[in-house]
Every structure is written in C-alpha cells, then in structure tokens.
C-alpha cells in the first residue's frame, strides 16, 4: 500500500498531557507515528509530529476534526496537513 504521510503541528501554551492526548487521538485513528519533535519556545509548546496515515481505518477528515476539537479543549492550535505541502515548498 502507498504510504501517506501527514504532519500534525501543535502550537500553544504548555500544559500537562498534551503529547499524551494528541498521540492517543492518532492511535485511536489507526495512524502510526514516524517522527516526533517538541520544544518550548518562550513558554510556548511547539510540537511537530509526522504520522503514517495509510492505515485502513484511518480517515483523514475525521482525524483532522478530532485533533482540532482536542485543540479547542486544550486551548492550543492543532493542525493536520498532508506532508506534501511542506516537502514541495523546500525541495525540488
């Protein structure tokens, strides 16, 4: 099966359990985490996570909705985007 990759970005005030809750949503939606990096820039939590979303039970739209809903609950911005957008802008 063709590998489909997505980028999850989380930006906002740091708080307990962000990573756990985001990765849980990914797990529940049959997405496999390929890479994860996080840092705190002047109190702001910044996480970029790359996931394989080619799983059979993984529905991109539903995953996106659940993540942005979680973002609202936590008061942070969570975005799900297909990885091609980032790859194409910096690579030929």
């Amino acid at each position, binding site marked *: 099966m063709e590998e489909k990759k997505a*980028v999850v*970005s989380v*930006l906002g005030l740091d708080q307990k359990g962000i990573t756990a809750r985001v990765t849980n949503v990914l797990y529940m939606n049959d997405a496999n985490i*390929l*890479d994860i*990096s996080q*840092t705190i820039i002047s109190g702001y939590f*910044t996480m*970029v996570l*790359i996931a394989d979303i080619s799983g059979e039970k993984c529905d*991109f*739209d539903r995953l*996106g909705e659940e993540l942005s809903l979680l973002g609202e609950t936590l008061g942070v911005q969570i*975005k*799900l*985007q*297909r*990885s*091609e*957008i*980032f*790859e*194409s*802008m*910096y690579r*030929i």
Partner: protein
Amino acid sequence: MVTPSEVLSVLQMIDKQKLDVRTITMGINLLSCASDDDERLCQKVYDKVCFSAKDLVRTGEQIEKDFGVPIVNKRISVTPAALISGGMKNHVRLAEALDKAAQTTGVNFIGGYTALVQKAQTENDIRLIDSMPEALSVTRRLCGSVNVGSTKAGINMSAVRRMGRVIKELSQRTSQIRGFGCAKLVVFCNAVEDNPFMAGAFHGAGEGDLAINVGVSGPGVVASALEQVKGMPFDKVAEVIKRTAFSITRVGQLVALEASRRLNVPFGIVDLSLAPTPAVGDSVAKILEGMGLEVCGCHGTTAALALLNDAVKKGGVMASSRVGGLSGAFIPVSEDAGMISAAKIGALSIEKLEAMTAVCSVGLDMIAVPGDTPEETISAIIADEAAIGMINNKTTAVRLVPVPGAQVGEMVEFGGLFGSAPVMPLSRFSAKGFIEREGHIPAPLNSLKN
C-alpha cells in the same frame, strides 16, 4: 523528512503572512456548443459547464482541507463567447446561461464573455461587445473582456473607441452599486489564453477541452522575507524574492497537480502572480515600500516594481513545470491596502500607474475615476495602455470604474476583495479628435520577427 522549522515557517506563511492559492480556475471549451438557435446554444452551454465543473468546488475544498492551505476562489473560464455566438439573436441570453451555470456549480466567477478584435471585428463581435453593458449588469458572476490590440496585429482603434462607450454605459447601468459592473470588464492588449485570474480569464481557442489553471498569491510572504535584507544591496533583495517566489509557486504547482489528478482534467498552467487583497499584510505596495520607498508612487517605484516582477518570474519558473497566465505582480489600486493609502494622500497618480504598467504583469487595474469622464478620455487611456503592451511585447489591461456622481477625492467602497478606492483625477484635456479617427494602428516593427 520534513523538519520542524520548515513546518513552522510554512504555518507562519499561511497564518500570519496570508499565503494562499488565489484561484483554481477550470478552463472549459465551448466550441462544440455553437448553434444558430439561441435556446439550444444556451442549453448546451449550461449543460456542458455544469457537467464539466460539477466537482470543482467540492474538490477544491477537499484539497484545502488536506493541505491546510486556503484556496480562496474556485472559478471557471470558457471559450470566448464571440467564437460560439455567431448565430445568436440575443447575446444576453448566453450571458444569463453562463451566470446560471456559475451559480449551479458554486463558483464565484465565470469568465469568457469575451471578444478578440485586435485586428478587426466581425459583425458578431460588435453585437457581443454592444451587449456587454446589459449582459454584465443583469448577471452577477459573469466577467467579460475584449482584446483590442496585440504586438502582432497592432491596435484596433475602432474597438478602442467602442470600449470607451461600453464602459461608460455599463457604469451608468450599475450606478446604484457605484458603477461596480465595470469591475467585471477588462480591456486587454496581448491577452493571454490561459489566465486564471478574473475579470480577464477566458479559455483560449488554442486550448484543449478542459484545463486546470491555478493562480497563487502571497505578497505578504515576500514583504516579510524582505525584512531579512533590510538596507542590503539589490542583488540580495532579488535573491530573497526569487527564493520566496519559488516556495509560493511550489504550493500552486502542488495544488494544480492534485486538482488535475482528482478531477481528471489536464493540468494547464500555474500563474505565479503576486495578487494583493485589501487585507493588511497582503499588499504589493508594501513590498515596494519595504525596498526603501517612503510611499508607493514616489520616484523609484517603477524601478522597484521592475525588480520585483522579474524576480518573481525567475523564482517561479523553476518551481513549476508549466508557467503561464499573467505571471508577475498585480497593481489593482482598490484591492491593495498600500495602494489605497498611497492614492488617498496623492502619492500615487494615474500617470505613475501608467509607467508602472510598463514593467509589471498587467495594467491600470481597479481605478475609480469620476463618473462624468468623457468616453473619449476612457478610450484614450485604453489606447495608451494598449500601446505600452504592443510595443513592449507584454500584456496590458485597463479596468477602470467610472463612478456615477462621484468627484475626485471621494472614497468609493466596492466591498470584499474588491476593496475601496479614492476617485482619481484624470487629465482634463480632451482626446476626442484622436479617438474619433478610428481605424487601426499598424503593428510595430518588432512584430516582424519571421
């Protein structure tokens, strides 16, 4: 693998600097719809447009969601109406059919109520052009254009004269919305056949059945990139603009290929134009000011724009497999917050704008002028612009809005993406005797390349 800093910088471009794909425009060939029966022709046109573009808006919205990049407009361009309407009795019915098809498919504009008369006009071209004031005032989503000149053919001065009258009449017919009908009509020299931007989009006669053309934008991204090279020499400025244009165009290329694949419609071109909107931070004027000009329109503006336009093309060409359309920088006065404020304080005059059109991608665009401007003056402005295009081998255009009842200096609100503009002063001296000559300005020597 994508790095976090790349992700963050793209997010910043989209959220803060207003990077977007301005339009996915589907070109639809209507040549097969020609008929000598008005009703039959209109039905065929309506059916073909609705069938071809039935998934356009939905697909555009899905791509927007998948990549997280805004796709502001979904639009349609069709074969110039003059090429299929030869047998028609009432052209306005075709305009209404196109407008209705735009409404059914959910696109915000449909372009192609167009005649190409750079060398001469047929009887049908004349009837179509004369129907424009009514056609563009009774419809909402239809845009029209007329190509009155080209480097190869010269300038059709009879058509130039006619367009002055048409623009005035269209302005009067839409006086209750301050002449806004004129925002849907462009007069071109060297019109391009695959332009995705309105109001001048049409699907040229040399095009295939269908095409996906994409217009990207992002003046805000360029303006913010320029902050990295504050005070540095122009070589550095050009490099930064090229690199930024490359990134922006890659987004357009990605969206175009994806739309083409999902809709099963051939990919046409990416138009790498910097198209401003009235939103703060989405202005071409601010880029020019970022190069060190006190205000857009002061001396030096033409040189700054020339550098910008050229660097955008150079960066963009590498980023896309097929570049076309107008590709460069747009300078629509009412749609650019920086241009609006420059015009308001009198820093930007129509004469300076005319000079700027010699080095940017289009022409005198979205300029409000007094409603009592004589039609010959409008024709003369068109003639000047067409001459710049003809001699310099480039596209030029005129989209003027004579605002009924408005005087110089008054602010006119067009709303939404069309913004607002102060009514600009024009020369008070007459070109009547010049315009009344009609006939044809011969093609220049540089047309003889064979």
